[in-house]
């Protein structure tokens, strides 16, 4: 399922009054998802504290992922807990399948200044 369909979740998350942790595992294929949609969905959840995104890149989708405007994550709103939800971002690719210790996908994202700023602020943890 393309992660773009995640917008439907905004209907759902807004009614989950106690939801503290949301985790999503998805394949990322080129052009099928957008960051603003994810942010909008997260912002609908009243007391969400942890978001875990496990994204597995196929073919060249990492290029698409690295080009996204990650500074948009600054738009995560402070919710009823008085805090921003914290994001754990796991990125893997075809080399991870073979158990390689070197993950070019993670490396590509680590070069993205906006995402590294978020990591420095403690809003995002990047893992591969």
């Amino acid at each position, binding site marked *: 399922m393309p992660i773009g369909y995640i917008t439907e979740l905004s209907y759902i998350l807004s*009614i989950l009054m106690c939801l503290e942790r949301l985790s999503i*595992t998805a394949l990322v294929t080129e052009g099928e998802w957008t960051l603003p949609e994810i942010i909008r969905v997260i912002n609908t959840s009243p007391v969400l504290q942890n978001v875990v995104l496990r994204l597995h890149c196929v073919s060249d989708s990492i290029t698409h992922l690295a080009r996204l405007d990650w500074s948009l994550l600054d738009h995560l709103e402070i919710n009823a807990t008085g805090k921003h939800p914290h994001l754990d971002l796991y990125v893997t690719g075809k080399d991870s399948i073979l158990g390689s210790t070197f993950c070019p996908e993670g490396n590509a994202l680590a070069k993205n200044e906006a995402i590294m700023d978020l990591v420095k602020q403690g809003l995002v943890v990047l893992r591969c």
Partner: protein
Amino acid sequence: MLPAELIDLIFSFLQGNTLALKACSKAHPLFSRLAERHIYAHIVSNSHVCQEIIENPHLLNYPRTLEMRPRNPPLKFIMSVIPRMANLVSLRIDDPYLFGQRLEFLSALKNCFQQSSLQSLYLSHLDRLPFSILDDAKYIKHLTLSNCNVDEDEPIPSSPSSQLSLDTLVFSNVHDEHLQRWAVRWVTRLTLLELCYVTNDWKMFFELLKACSNSLTRLHLEMHDNGMLSLYRLSQIYLCP
């Protein structure tokens, strides 16, 4: 000689290493009894295990988890002794019956639900499962349904409410809208819901999520079931434990 409690603790670290435990059990008669508890803590049903149980009925006290693999030959025997496994916590059943065994299996499964220690149930590849039998499973707190579908002829009762009240519910590869209508009855205290490869239409789960909206604290969604992701998950399990 070390006290039995310490030996027991040492053996507990060997759980899962049956060869090592069996070797230890041969070292001393006391070790044999202590090691047994750990050797049989997790069992996968097969003819060999069944034969051991027949010869040594006291082994029924040891299993905490029991796994039944697809089309398990000793199905009838193992289902009949589950109610005597006093410490069984988790039961996993995958594609259990051959043609003609369905009713017999369902009746035996219903008996298992009387067991107060049994808290976790994993059912996989069950066709036309009559969900009313789960209504009586008052001790089950964690339920996983994978590749299951509902007997659509079975009416969903409006009252009384189900005795089954879950903490954790996992749907994997389930595309049956009827199933969701049954599950609404079990989730008013649910804290964890996992939806794996379920559908493209999340709205289908709206009623289910509404039913647990005041208790659910964790939601996990797993999308895109294809060979690539399955391979990825396997790599996570076997290459990056």
